[in-house]
């Protein structure tokens, strides 16, 4: 009965794919809880057009997103089934020395309670391999940004200063000793923990480069780039999202950090990937 649970405003096509998706989920087993997102017109903080200073809304295809970040327990099951991703075995080129460093061993979590917390200290390569194993992929930046624009009630809460402050207050908080378990309040799409627990890898993390200063446009610096040159941020008030972009842009694909996890996405059945 998945269609009945979907918001009434969803287009018919999205309802259909949601139903298909739910059938797929039955076979995917536990731990792979995805929700269908309808997609549509979306205005990213990253310019999408040829003119770096102007925003062009983009069409985001319907897709499915994991409701929660991948947990340490789920990642443990993955490295048990795929020993080449255990920390003693993984080539340095795919994961740095801090990969899963908080675990007791290659196949033991830090403590039993860690199993429902988001996995962190994972590289982009490891996150991709995990999503592969789930028949999924990492979300693109646009998909992540689109999903994360929602609050509990609205699909796009970004214009609300109060909502912005709430998100920023998370960044201002000192790092908690332990990450909370996954399963925070769902947003309007039913996706949880997009804000407030961990940062998340996206598939195209190395495609988000930003010119630090708009004055570089037209400079010889732009020679480093083909096409439209470096990216400028369109909406400079979206600090919280900009911090994400800055963090992701600063990373290499083998890097790991103690507050960077991931979740997976996948196309809805019957739509192109």
């Amino acid at each position, binding site marked *: 009965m998945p269609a009945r649970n979907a918001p009434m405003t969803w287009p018919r096509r999205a309802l259909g794919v949601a139903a298909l998706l739910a059938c797929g989920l039955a076979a995917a087993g536990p731990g792979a809880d995805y929700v269908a997102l309808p997609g549509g017109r979306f205005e990213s903080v990253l310019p999408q057009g040829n003119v770096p200073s102007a925003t062009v809304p983009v069409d985001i295809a319907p897709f499915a997103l994991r409701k929660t970040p991948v947990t340490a327990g789920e990642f443990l099951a993955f490295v048990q089934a795929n020993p080449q991703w255990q920390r003693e075995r993984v080539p340095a080129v795919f994961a740095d020395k801090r990969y899963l460093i908080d675990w007791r061993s290659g196949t033991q979590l830090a403590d039993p309670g860690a199993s429902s917390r988001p996995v962190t200290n994972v590289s982009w390569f490891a996150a991709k391999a995990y999503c592969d194993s789930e028949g999924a992929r990492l979300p693109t930046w646009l998909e992540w940004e689109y999903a994360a624009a929602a609050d509990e009630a609205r699909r796009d809460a970004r214009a609300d200063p109060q909502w912005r402050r709430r998100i920023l207050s998370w960044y201002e908080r000192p790092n908690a000793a332990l990450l909370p378990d996954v399963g925070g309040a769902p947003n309007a799409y039913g996706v949880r923990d997009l804000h407030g627990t961990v940062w998340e890898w996206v598939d195209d993390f190395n495609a988000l480069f930003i010119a630090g200063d708009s004055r570089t446009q037209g400079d010889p610096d732009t020679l480093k780039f*083909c096409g439209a040159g470096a*990216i400028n941020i369109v909406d400079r008030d979206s600090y919280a999202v900009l911090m994400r972009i800055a963090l992701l842009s600063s990373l290499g694909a083998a890097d790991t950090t103690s507050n960077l996890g991931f979740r997976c996405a996948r196309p809805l059945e019957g739509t192109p990937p």
Partner: protein
Amino acid sequence: MTTSTLSRRAALGWLAALAGTPIAAAAATPPAELPGNSIYQLRPPLTDQDGRPFELGSLRGQPVLVSMFYSSCEMVCPMIFETIHQTVQALPAPDRDRVRVLMVSFDPARDSVAVLKQTAQAHRCDSRWTLARTDEASARKLAALLGVQYRRLASGEFNHSSTIELLDADGRIAARTGTLAAVDPALLKTLRQSLAARG
């Protein structure tokens, strides 16, 4: 489609890839194990400008200049080709044949084998050069390893960073340059050292 079948397939793929490595060099002395920080740990399905599939690891054994590009790029990409030509020319003549060049497209949708072939001819690429295409996901992975950034715009053009990496004989990144239209002395020096070390 369950998680376990996918994992098994992934595991089989991995095993097959591992098994392939020693066979290739079984006749000669067994090669030393590939270093963990070698980009040849990645096994993207590559096809060259003549339509031949090949392994990234088949480049092992000599220094390789590598970069990523897309054929319809009119501004910076031709400069990458030119810069690599200049770098190779800066070597003593006998050394020029001991270097390989690998150019991988991040635009597989448009860079067919035929387009790669045209591009190779347009840029006077001789037998030292391999222009290659792979699938989109593999291009993204290779770019991540090389530190190359790219992003497709709505127009179909790309924003991308332009660097040239020098890989040592085992596929480790030995030098990198963002200098275009001129030979980077630091990269050239490392390349010379790399060749001298191999006698």
